[in-house]
Structures are given as C-alpha cells and as structure tokens.
C-alpha cells in the first residue's frame, strides 16, 4: 500500500514557520558565490542561498536557467568554477575522494530519469543504497546482501508500495514505479537531505502527483531536508515551503511559497 498524502494545512503551517534568517546550526545546505561555466557560457553566476534543516525548497526556472547544474554542483557531480558549498557542516571544497563520498552518502539524489540499473531487480537497486555506508560485493546484488540489508531494502520498497515487485527487473517497471524504486534507493541511504532533479518530469500527471506526494511525505516523516527542481508550479506551491527562482544562472526570486500564486510564478517565467 502507498504511504503518501497530499499536503495539508499542517504542512502549510510548517511552511509559515520558515524564516530565511534561521540560526547557522539549523542550516543543512549553504551555497556561497557558486559559479559554473561550460566553455564561455556562464550557467551559474554567483549563486548564494541557505536551506534550513527539515525544510522543503523548490527550485524553479526556465530550461537552461541552471537548476540541474546547481543541484549537481552542490554535490560536486559537476565541479563549480568558483564559490563554496557546505553540506551538513562539511565544506565540500578541497575534499578528497573519500571525504566527498562520505558527505555524499548523507544526501539522497533522485534523478529525472531514475538512473536505475535496468538489468537488475528492483530489490538489488534498493540494496545499492547501502553503498553509502558499506562497500564491496555484498552491496552489489540482493542475492549477496546480508539478511539485515535485504530486510531493510524490502521495508523501503514497502514504503513506496512496491514490495510485490521486488524481484521484477527495473527495466520492466513503469516510469512511476521506477521513480518510486529510485526514491526507495535514496531512503536506503538513510539520508539527511534529498536532492530531486525534476523527479516527475518524465511521468504522466497522475503518476507524477503520486510520486511527488510520496517523496515529500516520506521525507517529512523522517525529517529529511528536500531541495527539488520542477517545472510544475502547482508542485512548487503545494509541496515546498520556500521557492527559489533562477533566471539565467542567478537567483531572481526567493521567498516563502505562501507568498506566491500560480499566476505570480507564471509571470516569473515570462
């Protein structure tokens, strides 16, 4: 059974408690002066913002505004050209490979295209989440995984309503199911932050609504901070407490979601 819900008034009240000037101790993500160029094209220009612990932030902006690049730079999946990123109190600049892996292990990343290993089962894909804390062949395939890991992975699949598809190959799942498996893999990491890069862009509206509601409700249950990019303005308003708008690589708006309406956000794209 799916354990998800649509946003309630309680969520709205959580949103209204958000204040951009929270104490530094409660900041999960801090980005300062981030700049990224591809050749001569500047994709991100001096981007700075902080995200409070446990909050849900939506990043919006037209295609090419730099949303995905910003998320990738926050985990150094793309190397920024300038600026700094601090995640959960750790400065990412200058971290070596193992230090970077350690920080990344605390951050779940849900990709637009799910990025599952298609030839492996849904369960094996969720087991991969344990690679954030233990390495080696026992974390590669569900058949090799220790009992505790398999049981935890099954629990995660249960959370996303796919325990009955545990042995199905990932490439035989629908788009919505694949994305739910990807969410289960992220949860298997026991993350403190989740980055979701247009998590429902490749899904039909119904599946998209389900997946988005599921992601946010599971994150809230666990007190996980979420930063997601979206083109769906309704999702930004319904699920986020704060909306950051990017235009041509710079932050052009940043405020509580309650300050905006669909019309206002649409005007931002104009």
């Amino acid at each position, binding site marked *: 059974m799916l354990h998800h819900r649509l946003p309630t008034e309680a969520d709205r009240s959580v949103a209204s408690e958000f204040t951009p000037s929270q104490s530094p101790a409660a900041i999960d993500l801090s980005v300062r002066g981030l700049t990224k160029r591809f050749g001569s094209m500047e994709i991100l220009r001096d981007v700075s913002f902080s995200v409070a612990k446990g909050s849900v932030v939506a990043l919006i902006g037209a295609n090419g505004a730099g949303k995905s690049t910003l998320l990738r730079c926050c*985990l150094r*999946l793309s190397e920024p050209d300038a600026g700094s990123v601090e995640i959960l109190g750790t400065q990412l600049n200058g971290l070596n490979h193992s230090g*970077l*892996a*350690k*920080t*990344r*292990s605390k*951050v*779940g*990343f849900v*990709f637009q*295209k*799910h*990025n*599952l*290993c*298609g*030839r*492996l089962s849904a369960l*094996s894909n969720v087991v*991969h*989440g344990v*690679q*954030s804390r233990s*390495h*080696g*062949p026992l*974390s*590669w*395939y569900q058949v090799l995984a220790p009992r505790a890991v398999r049981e935890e992975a099954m629990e995660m699949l249960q959370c996303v309503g796919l325990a009955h598809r545990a042995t199905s190959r990932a490439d035989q799942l629908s788009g919505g199911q694949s994305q739910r498996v*990807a969410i289960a*893999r*992220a949860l298997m*990491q026991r993350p403190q932050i989740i980055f979701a890069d247009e998590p429902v862009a490749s899904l039909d509206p119904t599946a998209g609504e389900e997946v988005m509601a599921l992601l946010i409700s599971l994150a809230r249950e666990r007190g996980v901070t979420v930063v997601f990019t979206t083109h769906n303005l309704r999702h930004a308003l319904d699920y986020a407490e704060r909306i950051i708008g990017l235009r041509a690589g710079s932050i052009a708006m940043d405020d509580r979601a309650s300050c905006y309406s669909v019309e206002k956000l649409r005007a931002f794209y104009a």
Partner: protein
Amino acid sequence: MREPVSERLQAPSRFGRTSPLQFTLLVAVGATLIFSFYDSGFSAWRFVEGMPNIWRLLTEMFPPDFSRISAVVAQLIETFQMAFVGTFVGVLLSLPIAVLATRTHSPSRIVYYLTRTVVSFFRTIPDLVWALIFVVAVGLGPFAGTLAIIVDTIGFCGRFFAEAMEEVDEGPQEALRALGASRLDIVGSAVLPAAMPSMIATSLFSLEKATRSSVVLGIVGAGGIGVELEVAMNLFNYQQALTIILAIFLLVLIVEQIGGRIRNRIIAGT
C-alpha cells in the same frame, strides 16, 4: 508544364571536391595495391593451372577412411577441452584487465595505457607464435595450447570487454557516485550488469575462435587434433585427412551453432 531546368531547385553535386591531400593518398594506396599484387605473385592463371591438382587431391581423399575414428574423436575432444578451458580462464582474467583498460574506471592514466598496451600485445602476436613459446616453456602437449588460447582470449576479450564497459549508460553510475559508492562498487553494481550481454556474446565468439585455433595449434605440438591432420597429410594419407577435416568441421559447426543460439537468446532477452 515543367519549369525550365535553370529555374528548378538544383541538387548538390554527388561527390564533394577531392583535396590534393586526398588525391595523393588515393594514388599512394592504389600504387601500394598494384605493387602488392605483383610482389605476392598473385596470378589467376597459376590458380587455374593448379585446379587439376586440387581435383586430384579431392579424388584421392574419397572415400574418407574411418579406421582410426576412435583416435580422431579422442583428439577432437581434447581439442575442444583445450578451447573450453582456455576460453574460461581467459575470460575470467579478462574481466579485471578490462576494468583497468577502460578510460572511465581505470585508477590512473598510466595503468590505463599500460593495460591497453599489454592487451594489444597479446592480441597482435598470433596464437601460433604463443603456442611455440609455451611449447618451449612447458613442453609439448595440450597445456601449451591451452596457455596460448588463454593469452589470445585475453587479447580479444580484454579489448571488447573494455569497450562494452565504456559504452554502458552513464546514468546509473552517476546515481551510485552521488550516493558515495566506491569505484569498485560502481563497476560491480552498475557497469558489469549493463555490459553483461555484450560480454557474454564476446565470450561465445571467443570460444568459437578458440575452437578453430586449437585445431591448428597441434601442428606446432601444442596438443589437439592438428597433429593428427599434419601426420596424415605428411604421410599422403589423404583419406584419413578427410576424416579429420570432416570431424573438425563438425566440431566447429556445433560450437558455432550452440554459441549463436545462446547469443541470440541473450540479445532477445536484453
């Protein structure tokens, strides 16, 4: 009424202009080909003149002599066993070598170039030369042939496994990198499963190739049925030679047929 030719849309010329460099290269290739024909003694007339000899050989071969069929079958089994063991061990050794020979997963540029060079070296030296070397090293018999097949298989599979690994979808690898997986975890969890169909197909090709090779290796004393064929030909016992050729044909045909069926099944299942 049709428009006059001058007013109709003109198609571009069929061939681009040949640059002076291209023209020079074409002339050089043409000249090399002519000299090669001359120096290799290529003569259609001599081939026609030799046809009666081929006919005489064929008539002397019939009917095939099955008097030593049990010895021939025993040698044929040994031939296949050499190919099977050689391919099995070669494929196993090729796996780690191929990982080191990929641009994306090799720990360093030096290791990458070194491994590529070794694999190329293994591939460019003909298996018959390897067999000669191993006959000197370990003595006459099938073990020398098996070692030659192992080296030849590494040269073949090492390259194609590496290429298969480099071609797999980057998405799942990035997802694992984002959650803090190690380089080995990424290879084991995402790269190997995705490259597996291609690697199995390559291994089956390798087994077919090894079966054909192992027939010839006997000629230099490296075990297998080749030695039987050589003896029969040297003693002008063409009827026995035909029996051996038919047995070789049957073995290669069976291996190719089984290999082809497995390969098609894997491709269909992908």
